[in-house]
């Protein structure tokens, strides 16, 4: 029984459903190189015209916030209410703002 993994590397797949829309994570595939990665992503995730754009990136290259750190990681946003329009009291009668 072989113990080495010969399934190729793991790549994450992102699909843009229509021009102008953001790319959304769809899932993952295995592939040995870029060309195979984009073709496998097409065959696996867009068999019914799900998208017009496709991105693949090796999973190991994605940097993410660790869930147990998310509290303080996002802290800086918590005390800056002045970033929201509702922070500002507007005089009565002001229009188009």
């Amino acid at each position, binding site marked *: 029984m072989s113990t080495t*993994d*010969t*399934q*190729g590397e793991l790549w994450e797949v992102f699909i843009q459903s229509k021009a102008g829309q953001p790319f959304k994570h769809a*899932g993952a*595939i295995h592939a*040995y*190189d*870029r060309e195979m990665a984009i073709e496998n992503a097409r065959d696996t995730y867009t068999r019914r015209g799900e998208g017009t754009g496709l991105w693949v990136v090796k999973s190991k290259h994605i940097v993410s916030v660790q*869930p147990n750190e998310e509290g303080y990681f996002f802290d800086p946003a918590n005390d800056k209410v002045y970033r929201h329009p509702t922070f500002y009291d507007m005089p009565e009668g002001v229009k188009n703002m």
Partner: protein
Amino acid sequence: METTKKSEKELLLEFEEKINGEQKIEPLDWMPEEYRQHLIRQISQHAHSEVIGMQPEGNWITRAPSLKSKKVLLAKIQDEGGHGLYLYSAAETLGVTRDQFIQWLHEGKSKYASVFNYAALTWADMGAIGWLVDGAAITNQVSLQRTSYGPYSRAMVRICKEESFHQRQGYKIMQNMMEGTKDQQEMAQDALNRWWWPALMMFGPHDGDSPRTNLAMKWKIKRETNDQLREKFINKTIPQAELIGLKVPDSNLELLTDGTYKHSDINWDEFWQVVNGNGPCNQQRLAHHIKVHNDGAWVRESAMLTSLIEE
């Protein structure tokens, strides 16, 4: 960086709060080891089922009665391969490699749906499989769209979008045969007779005999029990059979006033026989998977080398 270490108990409490609040659990989140193990078992079994399930239908690609039916069957089987891939990648987020999953399948440590251990004997079986086997799978998968594990839930949403074509193409084959010659009608009825009970077995043992059901329901891995799902399937499928003139092979069927059906119980001896490896095609299905996997080893190995050169 300062992080306060939480105790196992606090983590479990937070986990269960999330589950109760219908929040999804994501791969990097803390989860109890039993939850992880249950998911690894269930999702990999589901993935293997999609892939092994390509065999009985694959058997008919070269013998499809027309070019159109051949194209439809090919597209359907290709979808099943895709379902296997969605599910393997969902399972891999739990920290097990795809190689490992395949090794467990080959060693018999990991199971797949027993229904695929029955043989597809005639063209009508392509109808019965799409209508009944995919129909039963859909009933289960619609419910699993609400499972608590994020990657599994998202794979289910994607799969459900594709499945209704599978069931319709199968039912259409049955309908066409029922509108055909007497021989064709008999062939369709014979396929229903052989696939009805295996399809009902797909939902697994009775709730009382399914030891892991409680935990799976509590942690919302499963959202409905085996028996609940089986009844749903029975109640919607019997009228579909009657509509095209087929007779469900159960002499105790009775329509109750609330629109549900009274029916016979499954032959559980047969169920356990097939689960334990003694169904009509168990050995053939696994042997075929192992052979194809080994035959393709040189392709994977040379592709690995090419990818090293590209780096």
